[in-house]
């Protein structure tokens, strides 16, 4: 991975429909994607992640803004002129062609000599371990195998960027886990920039070099998995990636004054106005009532490895603590019991609303 920018989207806007019914699928999106990185666009459905991918592929034209590939403006270039290939959500394998013919398609369209087409196709079949299936029709393959053909087909022309539109969503959980590892391996072996679209936060966290969290047509935050999980920029990012507790109150110097009158230390917080902080459930510790924020135990939900303890502060604010389940399975807490709450060091993160 280098710092060279491969794809750069600048102030991209994409609107669908007109007049009052107009919807902005992308609202002034700017992002730089570096050469050789595994970059993920993560967000709920309708956030604009697929639209951004389709604009990069050239399937749609932006309403405003530009898209650069290696510094050259490709905004209005048709898809067949862009050195970018896509793995489609539905795979879009040509049903009238065999596995090998599907993989060779792009190379043939580029006018590569027959010998090269043959050699590359064979190499790609080997890469995705489908040598035995070369002559099969794609309808005779399993979902996982079709997925591999789609990958091989898109990688065969050696694109500068590979776009993957929720490619794993049609697979069952076990196969999905296998393919996640497979994808990561292919990316490392080929060194091609991958832009991966998903709504699955776990998938994004485990596979990506960097993640762009999107919502309502905007990029909310770009960063590595750790950066985004530990330092979420706003409420949306904090709640979309993992689970979290929000505490709201008056901002004082270095602390937050809750509605109960108690103080929570927030290093670096400046006095004035209101503020919200996020604390992950696994960073909540239960102590004696006198040693922390006063709370009452509410519902206890057993999850096997851990137990979620729903707690209520004096003003009614709910805080969830994730406690490792003891060997007996009994957390040793009773509903209505008074406890104290403390947060692990560095766990309290200020977030924008």
């Amino acid at each position: 991975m280098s710092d060279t920018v491969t794809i750069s989207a600048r102030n991209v806007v994409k609107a669908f429909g007109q007049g009052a019914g107009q919807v902005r699928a992308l609202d002034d999106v700017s992002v730089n994607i570096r050469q050789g990185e595994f970059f993920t666009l993560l967000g709920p459905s309708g956030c604009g992640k697929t639209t951004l991918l389709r604009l990069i592929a050239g399937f749609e034209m932006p309403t405003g803004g530009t898209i650069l590939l290696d510094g050259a403006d490709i905004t209005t270039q048709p898809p067949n002129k862009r050195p970018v290939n896509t793995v489609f959500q539905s795979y879009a394998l040509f049903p009238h062609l065999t596995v090998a013919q599907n993989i060779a398609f792009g190379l043939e369209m580029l006018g590569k000599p027959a010998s090269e087409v043959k050699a590359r196709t064979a190499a790609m079949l080997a890469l995705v371990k489908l040598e035995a299936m070369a002559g099969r029709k794609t309808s005779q393959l399993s979902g996982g195998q079709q997925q591999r053909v789609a990958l091989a087909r898109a990688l065969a022309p050696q694109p500068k960027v590979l776009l993957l539109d929720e490619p794993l969503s049609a697979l069952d959980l076990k196969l999905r886990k296998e393919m996640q590892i497979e994808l990561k391996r292919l990316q490392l072996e080929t060194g091609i920039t991958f832009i991966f679209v998903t709504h699955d936060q776990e998938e994004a966290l485990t596979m990506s070099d960097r993640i762009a969290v999107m919502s309502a047509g905007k990029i909310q935050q770009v960063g590595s998995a750790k950066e985004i999980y530990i330092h979420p920029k706003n409420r949306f990012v904090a709640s979309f990636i993992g689970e979290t507790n929000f505490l709201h109150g008056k901002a004082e110097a270095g602390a937050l004054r809750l509605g109960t009158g108690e103080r929570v230390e927030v290093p670096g917080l400046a006095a004035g106005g209101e503020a919200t902080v996020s604390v992950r459930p696994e960073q909540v510790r239960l102590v004696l009532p006198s040693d922390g924020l006063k709370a009452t135990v509410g519902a206890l939900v057993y999850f096997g490895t851990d137990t979620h303890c729903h707690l209520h502060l004096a003003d009614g604010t709910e805080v969830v603590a994730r406690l490792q389940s003891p060997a007996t399975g009994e957390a040793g807490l009773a509903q209505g019991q008074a406890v104290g709450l403390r947060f692990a060091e560095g766990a309290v993160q200020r977030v924008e609303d």
Partner: protein
Amino acid sequence: MSPAEENAIKTSARNGWLLSLPALVMLAFAATGPLLIVVWYSFLTANDTGNVIHQFSTEGWVGILFTYDIFEDGWVLADAHLTIFWRSVWLSLVTTALTFAIGFPTAWFIATRPAKERALWLFLITIPFWTNLLIRTFAINEVIRNEGLLNTLLIWAGVIEVPLQINYTETAVLIGMTYVYLPLMVLPLYATIERFDMRLLEASYDLYASRWRTLRRVILPIVKPGIIAGSILVFVPSLGAYVTPRILGGGKNMMIGNFIELQFLQGKNWPLGAALSVTLLIIVTAALLVYVKVANRDRGAGHG
């Protein structure tokens, strides 16, 4: 919208038109365009030797309902024409009713077969549907004519001694039209019943409805769009029928289609024939518009 987007939309619309253009030209030349000439001809003067004299006249239109009486020297109501119109409408309505009475149970039967069998039963309905109308009319003729299958069997069985005269009666036309248009009723009914949620029947029986009330209160209201579609599909071609009444009805039991032909061939009254054609076209279009309206309303109500 960016210029590139606008361009893409314009190009797409232009290509849509360009690709459709050859078909549209062909249809304008050999289907839609000539209809306008018929409208024009309906306002010209008849030429007794055939064709028309290019002189404006409304006699073609007046002639639909009235006929010139040379003895009274005035226009009188044309009873013969009214009889033909009435027969056309009446026979078409009865044909529609009969095809429904036979077609609904048939469509229901097909739709409630196991999925694997269904395609076969449906195929059995579509073969007659695509078979030459003339051949099917010949076929029914083979059954009902005096020396045909029906009479031969009845005489052999001793039920009758003299063959029943069915051919060349209105009954023959009715039997023939019911026979040839039955698939047109079954197919749309089947399409609607196939989508009918059979669990609604369980709900209906669960709520104490009898079979008869289930049919009337649950099934028929829900499959109504199919009933309307089938009725229109049968009524429209029945009204314009030509081959079936010509072969089975003989000269006496003419319908509008045969009456139109008569004006152009023996009758030598082209403007009247043209006016009758336009009238038939208007009735058929009205029926289709009613269908489109009802179909849209029912779709809006959540069916279909």
